[in-house]
């Protein structure tokens, strides 16, 4: 009886954690971003926000516009080895992203690239899947 309760509690705990996970994600990719509106942004990092539920890169492009690019959760970035020095202000980056549906200067990305070709994952699984699907579509 006692054991049974513990098992139920453990399942409850797991459920609670995964429910929190989806609540933290706050939105599905499709409600906020449009997979049919890819955009390539090139510019300098203005700042990087380590905030939940998603990190945000603020990026100034050549025409002076500041774009905000959504990345994964801070915990996902930390697991991938990111730290406070990973993306200092002033760094030149290239981002292939998907624009926000509302037309604002926001986008979601799976990875960033540096001018020397190095790539860095943003730990954003849904956007990664959308990008993989887009690439598969392009190669067909």
């Amino acid at each position, binding site marked *: 009886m006692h054991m049974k309760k513990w098992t139920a509690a453990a399942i409850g705990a797991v459920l609670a954690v995964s429910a929190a996970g989806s609540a933290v994600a706050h939105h599905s990719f499709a409600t906020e971003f449009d997979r049919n509106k890819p955009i390539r942004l090139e510019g300098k990092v203005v700042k990087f926000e380590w905030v939940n539920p998603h990190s945000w890169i603020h990026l100034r492009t050549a025409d002076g516009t500041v774009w905000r690019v959504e990345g994964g959760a801070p915990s996902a970035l930390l697991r991938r080895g990111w730290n*406070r020095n990973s993306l200092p202000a002033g760094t030149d980056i290239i981002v292939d992203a998907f624009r926000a549906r509302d037309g604002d200067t926001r986008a979601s990305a799976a990875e960033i690239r540096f001018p020397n070709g190095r790539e860095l994952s943003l730990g954003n699984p849904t956007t990664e899947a959308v990008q993989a699907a887009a690439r598969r579509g392009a190669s067909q």
Partner: protein
Amino acid sequence: MKRLSILAATAAALMVTVSGPAFAQAAAQQPATIDGKPNLNGIWQAMNTANWNLEPHAAGPNPVADRQVGATGAIPPGLGVVEGGEIPYKPEARERLAQNRQHLINYDPEAACYLPGIPRATYLPYPFQIVQGGNDDILMVYEYANANRVIEMRAVEPPPIDTWMGTSYGKWEGNTLVVETLSQGPGEVKLPGGVMEPNGVTWLDRAGNYLSPTANVTERFTKIDNDHIQYSATIEDPEVYTKPWTISMVLYRHVEPNAQLLEFRCVPFSEQLLYGDLLEENASPAEGSSPSK
């Protein structure tokens, strides 16, 4: 990382199953030691006015809501918990202190339900639970804001980023649990009225005392007897203080049979403070809502 998630799941399971008396009785029968280390498991709480002001202070009216809440919101007096009585701020660090004191309560992260940081989490007027197993990291769960921290039982290293609760590393020195917490930095902080503070600091109490992201906090948990812990925290921050300083106090075990952490998810309670100005701008007085009609 796996260990962390197991700990977190255990804590969540504990919060779900803690079924009052049965659990408390089990707690009363706990061994005095775990793997030869003092058993700190239990629900603890400070019993002082440190969260109002770490330094000695007289009773006083509520700093912002005297007119609305009267004596129920008044500041209770306290002898202070700072060894030596006074926090040794550098002259230049007093500017930030003065700025905090101009915005008491309103700019206090506690009022916004932001995470409290260390050591404030320990002496907030809410209980917290220590979850200690054998030869493993130790979890501290706080009733306030569902805050928690894992104390990694390993050598200190530079944390990858600043966070509200910092990163805690622990070790045993004899019968004392010694915890070092580094990199407590809120970063950019949203304040009431749409104000943004670009360089947030960790408030230590409702009187505006603070530490900065360069602080090193060393806590010591030593059991006095089964139901009391002697607690101290030494704060070292050459950017802000002329020398390290220490607070000390006793933590009391909740011994009532149904002792348990309840939920104080306070984010909704901070919304009027943080965003009330937006409501007033946008909302027109609701028609027909007047009780005189």
